C-alpha cells in the first residue's frame, strides 16, 4: 500500500510538471497572444488612460465649485465618499444591522445632500452605499440626475445640455434585460469637460 502511494506520487509529480507547463505557461500565454490582436489590445490593458472601466472619484480643487459628476462611495476611501485607494479593491463587508454602516450611510447622505444642495431624503441608494469593488465606474441615472444641476451651475453649461450629456452617457439594460441602467461617470465627466471647453 505504501509503495503504491510512493509510486503514484512520483507519477503524479511528473504529470504535474508537464501539466504546469501546459496549463500555467502555454495556456495563459496563448490567451495573452490573442489579447494582443488589434481591437482587443485596448481593453486587455484596462484602457487605462482616462479609464472608463474603473471608477475613481475625481476631486475638485475647490469643493465649493465642484465641476465633476461623482462615483459611488468606496470602502477603501480615506474620506466619507471617495476617492478609493486604487491599489486594492473590495467592499466594506458591513452587514445591514451594523451600527457602523448605519453611521456611514448617514454621513454619506449628509455629505452628498450638502454638496448638491438638496434635501437628504432626495439622495438615492447608490450614492450612500459603498460598491463591492470600491472601483464601480457606474452610478444610477437617479444619482446622475441629482448631480446635473450643480454641474451645470459650476461649469456654466445650460441645464438642458448637461442633462442631454447625462442621457448620452446612460446605458439601458444590455439587450433589454441584462444588468441595470447605468451612467458611466468617467465618460460623462469627459463629455462635460469637452462641452465646457476646459
Amino acid at each position, binding site marked *: 500500500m505504501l509503495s503504491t502511494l*510512493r509510486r*503514484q506520487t512520483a507519477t503524479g509529480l511528473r*504529470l504535474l510538471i508537464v501539466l504546469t507547463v501546459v496549463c500555467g505557461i502555454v495556456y495563459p500565454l496563448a490567451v495573452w497572444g490573442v489579447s494582443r490582436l488589434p481591437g482587443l489590445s485596448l481593453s486587455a490593458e484596462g484602457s487605462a488612460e482616462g479609464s472608463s472601466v474603473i471608477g475613481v472619484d475625481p476631486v475638485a480643487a475647490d469643493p465649493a465649485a465642484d465641476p465633476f459628476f461623482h462615483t459611488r462611495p468606496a470602502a477603501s476611501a480615506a474620506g466619507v465618499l471617495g476617492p478609493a485607494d*486604487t491599489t486594492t479593491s473590495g467592499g466594506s*463587508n458591513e452587514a*445591514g444591522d451594523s451600527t457602523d454602516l448605519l453611521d456611514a*450611510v448617514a454621513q454619506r447622505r449628509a455629505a452628498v445632500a450638502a454638496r448638491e444642495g438638496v434635501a437628504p431624503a432626495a439622495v438615492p441608494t447608490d450614492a450612500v452605499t459603498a460598491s463591492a469593488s470600491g472601483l464601480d465606474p457606474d452610478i444610477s441615472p437617479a444619482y446622475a440626475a441629482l448631480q446635473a444641476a450643480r454641474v451645470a451651475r459650476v461649469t456654466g453649461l445650460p441645464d438642458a445640455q448637461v442633462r442631454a450629456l447625462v442621457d448620452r452617457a446612460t446605458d439601458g439594460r*444590455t439587450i433589454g*434585460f441584462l444588468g441595470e441602467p447605468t451612467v458611466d461617470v468617467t465618460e460623462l465627466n469627459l463629455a462635460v469637460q469637452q462641452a465646457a471647453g476646459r
Partner: protein
Amino acid sequence: MNDTLAGLVQVAFLLVLLAACYVPLGDHMARVFTVERHWRVETALYRLVRVDPAGGQRWPTYAAGVLGFSFVSVVLLYLLQRLQPLLPASFGRGPVPPATAFNTAVSFVTNTNWQSYVPEQTLGNTVQMAGLTVQNVLSAAVGIAVAVALVRGFVRAGTDRIGNVWVDLTRATVRILLPLAFVAAILLLVMGVTMSLRSGVDMTGVDGATHTLPLAPTASQEAVKQLGTNGGGIFNANSAHPFENPGAVSNLFQIFLMLVVPVCLTRTFGTMVGNPRQGAILLSVMGVLWGALLAVAWFAETHPNGPAALAAGGAMEGKEVRFGIPSSVLFGISTTGTSTGAVNSMHDSWTGGGGGAALLAMLLGEVAPGGVGSGLYGILVLAVVAVFLAGLMVGRTPEYLGKKLGRVQVTAAAVSILVMPAVVLLGAGLAIALPGTADALGNDGAHGFSEVLYAYASAANNNGSAFAGITVTSDFFQSTLGVAMLLGRFVPILAVLALAGSLAAQRRAEPTAGTLPTDKPLFGVLVGGSVLLVAALTFFPALALGPLAEALS
C-alpha cells in the same frame, strides 16, 4: 421592463443556454471517459511521464494517485509562493508568509480557492499563472475524475478496476477543461476582461490626479476560475472588479460558465449508465434546490430589514450598479451552489435571509448543482442514501442501478456525507469558544456568528466565498481552515472511491417488481428530501443562531 421582470428573463435566458449545452457537452464528456483511443498528444504525454494508459486500477491505487497528485500539487504551490522573489515577473513582491502560503496552496488544490490575501498586492505573474491557474484546471480535473470513477462503479460489474487516474486526469484536462477555458477566455476578452502581463498602469483621472491600477493576466484565469468552479479572484474584489467582470454580459457568461460543467455532468452520468433519465432526475433535484435558494435570496435582498439598509433605501452596500440586485443574487446563489466561491457582490453585506440562503447553498453539501465533479458524486452519494432509506421503509434490500447497497456501500456514503457537517460544526464551535475570535469579526451579534459559520462552511465544502468582514489571517484561522478544506475534500473522495470499488466488484442484479424506479419524479422527491433532511438535522441550530436570528430581528 422593471427590475424583477428583467431579472426573470435573464434567469430564463441562462436556463436556455444551459439546456442547449446539456446533451452535446454531457455526451461529449461521456465519450471522453469511455472511448479507448488516445489522442497522439496524450500518448506522447503518457510516454513522457511513464504511464501505461491501458492499465486499469483498483480503487486503492486510483485513490493513491489522487492523493499523491494533490500532495505534490500542494507542495509545489507552497514552494512557488515561498520562493516568489526568485521567480520571474514577481514585481518585487516578497515571499508569501508560511501560514498564508499553506492555506492558499491547500485552498487552490482542493478546488476551494478561499483567499486570505490581497492578490494584486501579494502575488506576481509567475505564482498566478504557473501556480494558481494550473490548480484552477487540475483541481477541477480531479473532481471530474473521481465522479467518473464512481459512475464506472455503477456501470461495470464483476471487476476490481475503476479506470486509470492518470488517463482520466489527462483527458479531463486536455479534452474538456483546457479547450473550453481557451474559448471562454477569448469570449471574456471580447467582453472587455483584461489580460496583461504588466504589474500595473498609471492612469490620469479627469481631475488630473494620477492613480496606479494593478493589472494581471486576468482572462485566462477568469475563464477557468468559473469553468472549474474554483472562484479565486486575481483581484481582491473578485468578479466585482471591473477588470474581471466589466459588464452585464460578462457577468451572465461567468454564471453560465460556473454552472455548465456540473449541470452537464448529470447527462454524462445518465449516458454512461445507459439511461439519460437517471441523470435528468438528479439534475431536477439540483435545479429545484437552486431555484428555491435563488427565490429566497432574491426576496430577501429586495426586502431588506437591517437598519443600515433601510436607511440607505435598499441593500446596495457591497453591490455594483451595473449588476444591481437581480444579477448579484443570481451570481451569488450560483457561486455558492456550485462550490465556485467567486463573488460579484460582497456576501457579508447581504441581508440575513440572503446571506442565509448563500450559506445554506453550501451546507446542503454543494449539490445545487455542486462543483465540477464533486457535485455529481455528492448527489450520487445522497441518491444512495435515499435508496437506502426507501429500502428501510419497505423492508427490502435496497438496490440502485442494479447494484445492491449493503453495509459497505451505505457506510461509505455515510462517511462521505457526515465529514462536512462534523468539520463545519467543530471548527466553528472551536473558533467561537476561543477568546481571540471576537476581535477578528467584522460585525457584532448574530451576523458575527454567521461570519465564523460561513468561513468553516465555505472551507469544508470547498466553496471559497466568504463573509469577508472576518479577519482570517491569524495562524489559528489559516491552519484550521486549511485542515477543514483538506478533510472536506479528501475524506469524501476516499469514501466515494471506496464506494466505486465496491460497486464495480458486484454482479448486476436484475430489477424486480420490488425495485424502486430511480428515473421517476418520486425518486427525485426522495433524493431532495434526503438532502434537506441531512442539512436540516445537522445545521438548524447553527443557522438559527446566525442568519435566521438576523433575518427575523
